[in-house]
Each structure stands twice: as C-alpha cells, then as structure tokens.
C-alpha cells in the first residue's frame, strides 16, 4: 500500500534520513519506533510532501508520489496527522472538519461529522467551540477527525499519544484499532512502547536516521530498548 525505499532527506546541510526503506501493508498498522530526533517525523513529512526528499522513492498504491505537492498527495487518499496537532485555533470544531473535507473515495470508509462524533463523542459536544479553547486531548481528537474528513485510505499518525493522560491514551489506541477495522492502512510514529504494543501489526526501529530492524513488535522490542 505504502512503500518507502532508499529515502534520503536533509534540512540544509544537516542530513536527517539515510537510505530508509519500509512498507505499510493495506489494512494493517505499521509502527515506526524511535527516540526523539531519530527521523520519524521527517519520514512522515516526506511521505505527505511537506519535506522534499533528496533521493529515494515513495509509492502509494504502486504510484510514485515523491514529486507531488502535499495537496495532491492528500487528494490521492493519504491523511496526515502532525505531531504538534496544528489545528486551526481561530476556527471552530465544525470549521476545522470542513477544511479536511474531501469527496467520498472508493475503497475508503466514508466519514461525515455525525459519524466522527460517534467515534469522538467529546467533539460532538463542542461543535462550535474555537480550537484555541480546547484541551490538548480534545485537540488531538480533532486533528485526527479533521484528517478523516478527507476519507483517506491510509493515515499517517505522528506520536498521537504524546502528552495525553493515560485514560486518553487507551482511548486513542481503541480509536486506531477501530480505524484499522474499517479497512484503513495506518502508519504510526511512536516512542512509547506500551502504546505501540496496543496497536502494532508490524514495527520498524529507526535510529539516527537509519532503519535498524523490522519485524513484529516482540521481535524488535529488545533492539528498541537498547537504542
């Protein structure tokens, strides 16, 4: 579904990624495990087109996408949920959802605000609230809901558990399993092993911009704990 091969990326002279290759299979949850600064976020930004890779190839559904603009990639059905949430704080919950809205897509679950409020009941109770007036957990829910409004076939989640209370983290894991059950492909960046265990089908350990190991979560756990 989503294949990354030989990805190299840099910010100016600082190289971030070295020959990174991995794959997220359709309908599964793949996890990129790594510490702060390992290159996880940059990998996701390369996939959605916010960072231009120096070399390498990214294929979505067999089609190379590394030369496309972010909006074109999003319109192919790739949803991106950034680490720092980046919700539109001047806009209400409903307006934030409106920004993410795209036409229904074949082969992907079709989301409406009503369906999203079933998944995130909290949001349903604050439809006219400004993004600036929401708690961190509520913002995290909104940023996922906003991306789902684009009816994506694959979703990139950058550390969704970061900074959330334990109860909300559990809820987040349930949400991700629910998305998988609906047939979505999920690529998740995480440094929280506990959270990753709750959802991962396959895991990749990334360190200092290089891929160290891949396998099931149990297979890579020791490697990750050493880095």
């Amino acid at each position, binding site marked *: 579904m989503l294949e990354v091969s030989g990805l190299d990326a840099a910010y100016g002279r600082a190289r971030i990624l070295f020959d990174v290759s991995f794959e997220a299979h359709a309908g599964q949850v793949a996890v990129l495990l790594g510490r702060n600064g390992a290159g996880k976020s940059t990998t996701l930004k390369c996939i959605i087109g916010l960072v231009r890779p120096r070399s390498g190839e990214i294929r979505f559904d067999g089609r190379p996408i590394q030369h496309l603009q*972010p*909006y074109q990639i*999003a*319109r192919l059905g790739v949803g991106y949920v950034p680490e720092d949430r980046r919700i539109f704080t001047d806009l209400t919950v409903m*307006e934030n959802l409106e920004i993410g809205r*795209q036409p229904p897509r074949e082969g992907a679950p079709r989301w409406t605000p009503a369906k999203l409020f079933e998944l995130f009941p909290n949001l349903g109770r604050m439809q006219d609230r400004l993004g600036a007036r929401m708690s961190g957990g509520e913002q995290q829910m909104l940023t996922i809901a*906003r991306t789902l409004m684009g009816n994506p076939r694959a979703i990139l989640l950058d550390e969704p558990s970061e900074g959330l209370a334990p109860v909300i983290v559990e809820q987040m894991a349930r949400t991700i399993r629910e998305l998988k059950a609906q047939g979505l492909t999920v690529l998740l960046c995480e440094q929280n092993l506990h959270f990753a265990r709750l959802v991962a089908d396959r895991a990749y350990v990334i360190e200092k911009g290089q891929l160290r190991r891949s396998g099931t979560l149990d297979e890579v756990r020791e490697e990750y704990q050493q880095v």
Partner: protein
Amino acid sequence: MGSVPFFFMSASSILIQFLNGLASASSLFLVAAGLSLIFGVTRIVNFAHGSLFMLGMYLAVALAPMLGFWWSVPLAALAVAAFGALVEATLLRRLYAAPELLQLLATFALVLVIKDFTLWAWGPEDLLGPRAPGMDGAVRIAGLRYPEYDLFLIGFGPLVLGALWFLLRRTRWGTLVRAATQDREMAGALGVNQRWLFTSVFALGALLAGLGGAVQIPREPATLFIDLQIISDAFVVVVVGGLGSIPGAFLAALLIAEIKSFCIGLGYSKITLVVEFIVMAVVLVIRPWGLLGRMPAQSRGPGTVELPLAFPTRKALAALGGMAMMLALVPLLSAGYTLVLLTDILVFALFAVSLHFIMGPGGLHSFGHAAYFGLGAYGAGLLLLKGGLPMELALALAPLLAVCGALVFGWFCVRLSGVYLAMLTLAFAQITWSVMFQWDAFTGGSNGLIGIWPSSWLSSKTAYYYLTLATCVGAIALLWRVLHAPFGYALRAGRDSPLRADAIGIDVRAQQWAAFVFAGLFAGLAGALFAFSKGSISPEALAVPRSVDGLVMVLLGGIQTLTGPVWGAALLTWLQDAVSRGIDYWRAVMGAIVLVLVLVFPQGVTGFLRERFAR
C-alpha cells in the same frame, strides 16, 4: 475658507463634515480590506495596491462614456481583479518562498510599471469622471445641501464589510482562507490547493482596490499621484487597524477619514497629515499591532541566516584606497561632464551606503530612505536661502534636519519589524514629501527652491568635485568602520537574534534607533551635497522613486556585501544618466530592472558573481 475653531462650527456643519468622513471612509476601507486580506493569506504586503486603485479609477472613467457609470464601476473592478490574478499567477507565485524584502521590492516595482502604463494609456492630464446618473442631485440635511451619491457611499462601505463577513464566515472558500491565513502548510497537507486559493484571494483583494477606485470617480478626478497617496493612506489605516483584520480596517478607515474630514472642514487641510500621523503614533504606542490586530505569529521553518560580514582583507583595502587616489586624479584628465557624473555617483554612493547600513547589517528594510536625503537637501537650501547662513555652514548643518526626521520617524519604526516597518517607512516618506510639496510659502511647493549655489571658492566643477570626493569617501569609510566596531556587531546581533541579543544586554531597539539616525545623518549629508551640486531642489529629491533608486543600488550590489552598494550606485547612476534621457518611460524600465533582479539575482549581482566564481 479660513480656519474656524471647532466650537464655532454650527451643529449642522459638524454633521455634514461627519457625513463627509463616512463617505470617504468607504473607499479607503475597500482598499485597506483588500490589502489586509492579501497579506493574511499570502504574507505579502502589496505595495501596488494603490496602483490597482488608480487603475480602477482610470478604467471606470474610460468605460463610463461607453457603458454608463453604473456598468463601468463593476466592470472596472472586475478588470482589475483579472489583472491581479494575472500578476499573482505570473509573478508573485514565484516569490512566496523568497525573503520578505524581495517580495516587497517586487510589488514596489509593480507600482512603477503600472504608473507608466497609466501615463502611456491615458496621458498625464487629470481625468474627470462622470456623475452618477440618478444620484447626481443633493438632499437637504439639517438645512444644508448634501450630495446623494455620498449618501450611497456611506451605505456602500458597511455593505461590503457585510459581504466580506459573509464570504469569510459562511462559505467554504472563506473557511479555507481563514485556515490558510493561520497555517497554509497544514491546509495544503489536508488537500487544499493553495495555488487556486492564493490566486483567488489576490483577485478578490485587487477587486476591492479597483472597486474602491471606481466608486470614487464622481467625487475626485483620476490622477497619476493617487496611487502613492492611497497606498500610504491604506498603510496608515492597516497599521492603525491591525494588519489582517477586516473589522480593524473598517474601524481605522472611519477614524482616519473622519480626522481628515474635520481637518479640512475646519480649514486646516494642510495639517491633516500631521494629525493623521499623531493618531497613528498614539495607536502604535498603546497597541503596537493595531486596534484589532494581533501580534504576528512566528513564521514556520528556519529563517534565513546571514553569513558574517567579513572584514576587508589588506589587499581589498589597498585596492579601495587606490581607487580613491585614482578618483582624485580624474580632474587632471577631464574637467567637463565626467566630473559632474562622478560627483553624482559619489553622492549616490554615500546615499546607498547609508541605506545599506540599516538594511543589510541592521535588518531594517526602509522603503522611505529618500526622506532623509530630501530633508538634507531641503535643509541646505532653506538654511542658505531663508536662514541666510553661509554655504559652508548650511552644508554642515543641513544633515541635522535629516537627523531630526530620523529621530522622530525612527522612534516609531524600530518598534515594528518586517513588513510593518517597511510600510511605516514608506508612509513617513510620503508624509515628508507631501509637506514639501504642499508648503508653497516655505519650500516652494512643487517648484522647489532655486539658487542654491556653493560659495565662490567651490563654484568650479573641479573644486566642488574635490569637496564631494573628500566628504563622501570619508563618510563611507566611517560608516564601514562603524560596521566593524562593537556598534556594528551589536547591530548585527540584534538583526540575527533579537531575543539573544537582548539577553546579553544589548538594547536592540536603542541600537536600531541609533543606527537609523546615523544612517539618516549620512543620507542627509548626501542630500545637502546634491543640492549644492545642482543649484536647485524639487520635491523629487525625496519622492518615492528616489527611495526605489536606493533600494535598487543596494540590491544590485548585494545586500549582504560591504562594498556592493557603491558599485550598485555607480552602475545605476551611470545607467540613468546614459539611458534615461532617451527613454520616456524610465520608471517602467526601473521597475522591470527590479523585477528581473528579484527573480534572477535574488542575492544581488555581486553576490551572484561571488557565488558563481567562488566555486
């Protein structure tokens, strides 16, 4: 009309002045709203917005005889919108990732191109517009006659405000615009095609400017001066109201238009600018981001990092010294026109170096540096002619007038940064120009002052050349020396990281203010030398094109080089001398040069050559 103290105005004439203010506010609001809208989404301050207003006026005047007034207004606005979309798609789109200064310069260049286009298409005469059919009469209000059309305008502004509110708050397009205003990158990652959004926003902004111009034609003639007048008014409105805030623009347009209206009504039309200026000053001191504005968010991504300014090598210093010596030998070989041209080049080299002093190492992008040049020139003329001082004393004291200007204007300017600063410097320069242009009794108005000749011992071209050479070379050396003194280091520290500079005990604002005044002093000195070399001065000495000249010189030479501005000044002065006399539309050529520079050599010509040959 003589001046009448406020408390002697009758209640009815107060009401009429109030209504006049409301009517003028509408058009001003349209322009400022467009400017704000475009800035909000694209982060570009469109210096050419006043020019779009002017185009709207001329187009409406031209279309009215064929289509009638009521059709000509919307069609002129639509034509300006289409032109705006074209400009965005062909030019501005390439500059969204460019440094702010280049974006400002590019729109600045458009001002020149559009002005010459208008001159070419409609000629230099003012064009009177038609009256509005069906609204050409007057109604009686409180016993006084009041034009019906002005009543229409009073309603039109709020109507547009309402329409904009609806568009931005109740449509998908408006929601997208508001989202992109906050975080355009994220909006893109969610599937929003920014290209279309940006083009449509620019077209809407242009439409508002064109409409603002078109609805004015029954009230005032279309003139070639209106572009800069409107843009500086719009800048004041936007700075007062808060950049990016449409309701702020409305409020500020009302405030500024009412102030103007009452100043005119009371017979003090000449102090309008001063009052406007004081209002702006008060607002900026109390609320630096305007009445309804918010502090601009830090832009995402790493900022541009300037390379350190290297101290010239011994060889380079020797070469520069050698050049000065050679310049000193020129009069032995030639005494004619070469000396006049070289005198000009030296004067403008000093002007450009003083501008570079605050722009490059200071990071203060001044779009109105000619104000200080002009103040120096007028200072020299006024001290000589009105003050009766000897020429030597007038030349020495004239730069102090520029210093006074820089002290006052700079105090406000260093409180702002980036585009706010650029807008404010231009507004101040325009205000200074208006004062010189309008104050017939003292400055000679549009004719300027004549008979500003040097003392007899300096009256030969050779003698004056030596005076200029010694003064300019000395002043330039001093400016360069200061850049490599602790003062210059602290200045660059404040540019590169205001927070860190502040933390190590540098008062960044005071430092920048001092630099601004110091640069003003030398621009003034250049102006004074210029006045005595020509024997006369006119308001052109401090008009906007002169500020553009300075910017082009610095840009030609490369903004982050030391000697670049001198080469830029030499090249441009020579070019202007050689080419301008043969070309009618010199401004458009200048504009085109700027556009090419911005698009092709964003790091300046010397910077380009250095990069090219350093490899």
